[in-house]
């Protein structure tokens, strides 16, 4: 079910993910290109990075990344160059700026809150009196005495 859209990407352009002719001769540069590609989204696909995508647009982006790297840009400059042209939407890894801070902090904050609540709960549990287990009723005391006598 889930890959229907993915499939649509395939239909749109029956190309293939990274093509042999795209790969740079310099392995170090190519490794950097891969690193950058993994964080860039294929804009017409569903949640795929441009390395994995078959779409024409993803190929253009891959070539663009390599072009910038060959031109001597740093990784950050290359990403900034692409974000300038395609918008924030292209980043699979959202920045930690502005409202996105909330996204990044949500997990740690929740974890902290969970630990706090859990800790308080456990402190209460460890000091709580065990109502029926600790004290026997008078009736039970009698019964206990009876059993012990036997």
């Amino acid at each position, binding site marked *: 079910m889930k890959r229907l859209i993915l499939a649509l990407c395939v239909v749109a352009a029956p190309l*293939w993910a990274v093509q042999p002719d795209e790969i740079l001769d310099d392995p170090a540069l190519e490794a950097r290109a891969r690193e950058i590609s*993994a*964080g860039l989204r294929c804009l017409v696909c569903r949640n795929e990075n441009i390395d994995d995508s078959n779409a024409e647009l993803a190929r253009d982006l891959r070539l663009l990344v390599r072009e910038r790297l060959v031109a001597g840009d740093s990784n950050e400059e290359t990403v900034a160059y692409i974000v300038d042209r395609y918008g924030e939407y292209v980043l699979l*890894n*959202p920045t930690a700026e502005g409202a996105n801070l909330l996204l990044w902090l949500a997990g740690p904050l929740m974890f902290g809150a969970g630990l706090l609540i859990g800790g308080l709960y*456990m402190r209460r549990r*460890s000091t709580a009196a065990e109502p029926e287990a600790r004290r026997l009723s008078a009736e039970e005391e009698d019964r206990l005495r009876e059993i012990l006598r036997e």
Partner: protein
Amino acid sequence: MITELGHFALVLALVVASVQAVIPLIGAHRRWPGWMAVAEPAATAQFLLVAASFAALTYAFVTSDFSLRLVVLNSHTDKPLLYKITGVWGNHEGSMLLWVMIVALFGAAVAWFGDNLPPTLKARVLSVQAMIGVAFLAFVLFTSNPFLRMDVVPFNGQDLNPLLQDPGLAFHPPFLYLGYVGLSMTFSFAVAALIEGRVDAAWGRWVRPWTLAAWIFLTIGIGLGSWWAYYELGWGGFWFWDPVENASFMPWLISAALLHSAIVVEKREALKSWTILLAIIAFGFSMIGAFITRSGVLTSVHAFATDPERGVFLLAITAAFMIGALTLFAMRAGAMQAKGVFGVLSRESVLVLNNILLAVAAFVVFFGTIWPLVAEMAFDRKLSVGAPFFNAAFTPFMVILGLVLPVGAMLAWKRAKPGRALRALAPAFALAVAVGALAWAVQSGRSALGPMGLFLAAWLVSGAAVDLWSRTGRGQGRLARLWRLPRADWGKAVAHAGLGVTMAGIAAMMAWQAEDIRVMQTGDTAEIAGYTLRLDAVRQEQGPNYLATVAVLTLGRDGREIATMRPEKRIYPVAAMPTTEAALHNGFLRDIYVAIGDPQEGGGWAVRSYYKPLANWIWGGSILMALGGFLSLSDRRFRVAAGARKVPQGVPAE
């Protein structure tokens, strides 16, 4: 004719479910045994009717009855029989019918096997389950009717999406649905207990098998889906943090938490309200999952209009059940007093930590999944949240979980002396550190991911072994006692070890995979991680309903030939769609993965080959987790009535 009967059976099922939703509930409230007793035959009847309806649809698919719209859209006479059958649920309408059938099946299962439930609780559970049935039956009948006819009957159909014509994906949805819908059962138990106003150890014991079953099915379903992605998509990715994947992953995490907190309810009568809340949330995530998959709201933010009617209907169902259950929870949660007292260091407290970790992890996934929607609506920012975010934000919680798990699993209930568990686990820890250090020394890069993953895996697996061994007591005959340990103990150890195995696979695959992409002419060789691949031939073949380009490659190492690999690229003419069929050479420590691409302009073919270390461990671990669940489920104490005579526990320690 059969189609009309199926349609009619579905309408009847809706009527029966409506009766089942109301009468037993009133009966339980007024203590009228006759009214309560309606629930059981109604649950059976509802299941039989939906099953008949499903059978009618299956019949239409198998006989290629192209007067049905659904069959035209999703089938073709040339399709192999297996995919004619799986085509029944390979589409929206049919899969919803399957969903409804499973809702009814779970209800019927409670009617058949729930002999040990108190009559009022049973009546209420079945009644709540029937409410879920009514909601989804109405959804199917009014917005997604699979029995609609064509005005003009075509000669042939439009074929099933070729990506779905695959054994892995054919059985992926039924398992997922068994899991999603299995959580409706725990939801029904939770709501019934809230109405009843009573949650005790017995309730914990009744609800646990259902949770466990749902979790097992989710594990298998997710595993199958990820395995399918691995071999089918052509580059060996196994998890994409796609909204739809996340939709199945969140219920898995929550049901794993629920599984553990229900143990605390059963053994110690604590964490009651939290467990009820988890049971409600777990099914909530299942329904949100259904909503996400079917409305298209998250696949693309602008696609809400693809089918607003269905989306709105599903959202309404989700909202109605969640608001209803949570209101009930707010009213009744105070009445559920915890009884058990436990120390800050005890099995209970580490299970609380387990629950915090799993719930927060699920929350992170949820937040990341809906964030693009929130950001666009509230902050007018169009952005994506993809794999890099989830890898960074989710993984730490799983690492903490893995670190704590072996120690927590060995702590005693109530008040634990951690020193004992730590001493027993010292060898396991030393082994794990050694494995991690070895991985660090051997690897070429300086990534911490691989060694960390292997360390956790060794720690979890050896920790599970130590835990089992420590249960055999002292003196002679420990090995014999090991085999006679309760199956629940074995299940726990196997499932925890499975988690470790999966972690090892994921870490190794992400840290150490190697790839080679090149143009190959016939006779060329490629090198990948010490293996050689020779392209022998490329030829065209004809399948039952597709055309295939098949490459024949010889895999070798050190001059020896190991295997012949035959990756394919298929074209399904009816659906006009290509698919890749990668060739895999499976090994215990690695897979070699080859896919063939397009012919190149200058002659030759694009060939992608990968070295995937520990690939099979990911799914091996999933199988172990599911197996552990089954072992636990088959434990004797779930089969004997609660409160029945005590089972002698093996041979007493000497």
